[in-house]
C-alpha cells in the first residue's frame, strides 16, 4: 500500500481475531494481547465485545477506535431493539458498524468482525475491514496475526462443521497465530452463539497446543533435572 505518511511509529494491528460459521451458529475467537509499541499493556484483554444478546463483535486495530465504535453501535442497537420490539438481526448490527467505519474512514483504524445468530438467517459472520467495506463470509479472520492464517484456513476450513469442530478450529488457529505474531498473545477467548444462547470460553496460554520449536512448560529447570551432574556442551 502506498501511503505518504510522515508518521514515524509503525502501525500494527496487534491482534488475531476470527469468526467462523458452523451448522447452527457461529464461533468467535481472539487473542488477549494489547500492545503499546513493544510493551504489552494488557495481557488478558477481552477483544470480543457484546453488542446485543445475540450479536458480538471481535475488535482489532486501535483499541480506542474499536471500543468507541462498538460502544456507539451497542447504544444504537439498544434503541433499535426497543423500537423494533424484538432482537436486532446480525445484518443490522453489521451495517451499523459499517456506517460508522465508512463515514469516519479518515479518522478510524479498526477492523471488526461481527458475528451472531438471529431467527431469520441463523448464524452469520460479517467482516468490516479498514475503510468500511462490509462482506458476509462463512468465516473471517482479522488483525495482524491473521496474515499467518490465510494458508491455514484455505486448507483446514470446510462447510457444515459441528460446534465442537468449529471451536477447535478457532482455538487452533488463534494459537498458531500467537506462535508467530509478536503482537498477538496471552489467552484464547471464544464465544459461541446459537439458537440456545451464548457461551464464553477461556483457554489459558499454557493449555494451548505446542507448535514447531516450542517446548513444554515447567515451573523450574530443577523439576526437569534428573541427576545432579550438569550437561557437558
Amino acid at each position, binding site marked *: 500500500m502506498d501511503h505518504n505518511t510522515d508518521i514515524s511509529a509503525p502501525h500494527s494491528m496487534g491482534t488475531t481475531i476470527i469468526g467462523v460459521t458452523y451448522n447452527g451458529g457461529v464461533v468467535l475467537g481472539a487473542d488477549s494481547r494489547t500492545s503499546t509499541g513493544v510493551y504489552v499493556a494488557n495481557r488478558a484483554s477481552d477483544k470480543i465485545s457484546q453488542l446485543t444478546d445475540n450479536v458480538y463483535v471481535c475488535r482489532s486495530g486501535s483499541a480506542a477506535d474499536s471500543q468507541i465504535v462498538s460502544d456507539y453501535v451497542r447504544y444504537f442497537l439498544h434503541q433499535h431493539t426497543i423500537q423494533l420490539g424484538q432482537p436486532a438481526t446480525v445484518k443490522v448490527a453489521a451495517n451499523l458498524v*459499517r456506517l460508522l467505519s465508512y463515514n469516519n474512514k479518515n479518522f478510524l483504524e479498526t477492523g471488526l468482525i461481527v458475528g451472531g445468530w438471529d431467527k431469520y438467517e441463523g448464524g452469520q459472520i460479517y467482516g468490516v475491514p479498514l475503510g468500511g467495506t462490509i462482506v458476509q463470509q462463512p468465516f473471517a479472520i482479522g488483525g495482524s496475526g491473521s496474515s499467518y492464517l490465510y494458508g491455514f484456513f484455505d486448507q483446514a476450513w470446510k462447510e457444515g462443521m459441528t460446534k465442537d469442530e468449529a471451536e477447535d478450529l478457532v482455538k487452533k488457529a488463534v494459537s498458531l497465530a500467537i506462535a508467530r505474531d509478536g503482537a498477538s498473545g496471552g489467552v484464547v477467548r471464544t464465544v459461541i452463539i446459537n439458537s440456545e444462547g451464548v457461551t464464553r470460553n477461556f483457554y489459558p496460554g499454557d493449555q494451548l497446543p505446542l507448535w514447531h520449536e516450542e517446548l513444554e512448560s515447567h515451573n523450574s529447570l530443577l523439576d526437569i533435572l534428573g541427576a545432579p551432574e550438569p550437561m557437558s556442551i
Partner: protein
Amino acid sequence: MATVAESERTLYPYVTGSSVVALKYKDGILMAADMGGSYGSTLRYKSIERLKPVGKHTLLGASGEISDFQEILRYLDELILYDNMWDDGNSLGPKEVHSYLTRVMYNRRNKFNPLWNSLVLGGVKNGQKYLGMVNMIGINFEDNHVATGLGNHLARPILRDEWNENLTFEEGVKLLEKCMRVLLYRDRSAVNKIQISKITEEDCTVFPPFSLKTYWDFSAFKNPTAAVDLI
C-alpha cells in the same frame, strides 16, 4: 494544494477490486470482472461481486475501493426508488445513470474527497446500446468497448483488434474470456474466479462465477535457459 482539512479527504484505498472489461455485442452489452478484493498486496477476499444490475436497463461494474462502490450502490438504490415512485411508465436508462454518476464523481473530486472507483456502465434502452466509463476524477466517455485499470493496457488492444459490431453472444463471451485470461497471467491483483454478465433489451443476467483454464505447457517455460546451454 488542498484547501480542505487533511482529515476531510480520502487519502488512499484499502480493499480494492481489479479490472472490469466490457464490450457491446449484437444484442446488448457483455461485462466481465473477477471476484477479488485485494487488501494491499494480499488477495484477501475472493467472493466480492463487482457487477451489479441497476434498475431495469443498466449494469454497473466497479474497480477500486469496495466500500465506496457499496456506497455508490446505496445512492443508486435511492435514485431508482425515486424514479419508480413517479410511477409514470418511464425508467432511468444507462445514459441517465451514467450522467448521474459522473456528476457525483466529479463533485466529490472537486471537494478533494473522491469516491476511489473506476466505474463501467452498460445497458440497452429502446433498442439503443450504451457503454460508458467514469472514474474517480470525473473523466467519462462512451465507447464500443471499455476497461478499467490494467485492463486498459492489456485488454483494450485485444478488443481494438478483434471487436466488431456484430459479435454474437458466444463470440463476445470468448473475447471477454481472452481478455480476462491475459489479465490473470499479467495482473498481480487478479483472482481466478470470474463473473460475466450480459444485459439486453429484455433482461439482465449475472452468470455464476467460474474459473478459467491457464496454459503453462510450453517448452520455453519448461526449459527457459535451453538456448544458453547450447553455446
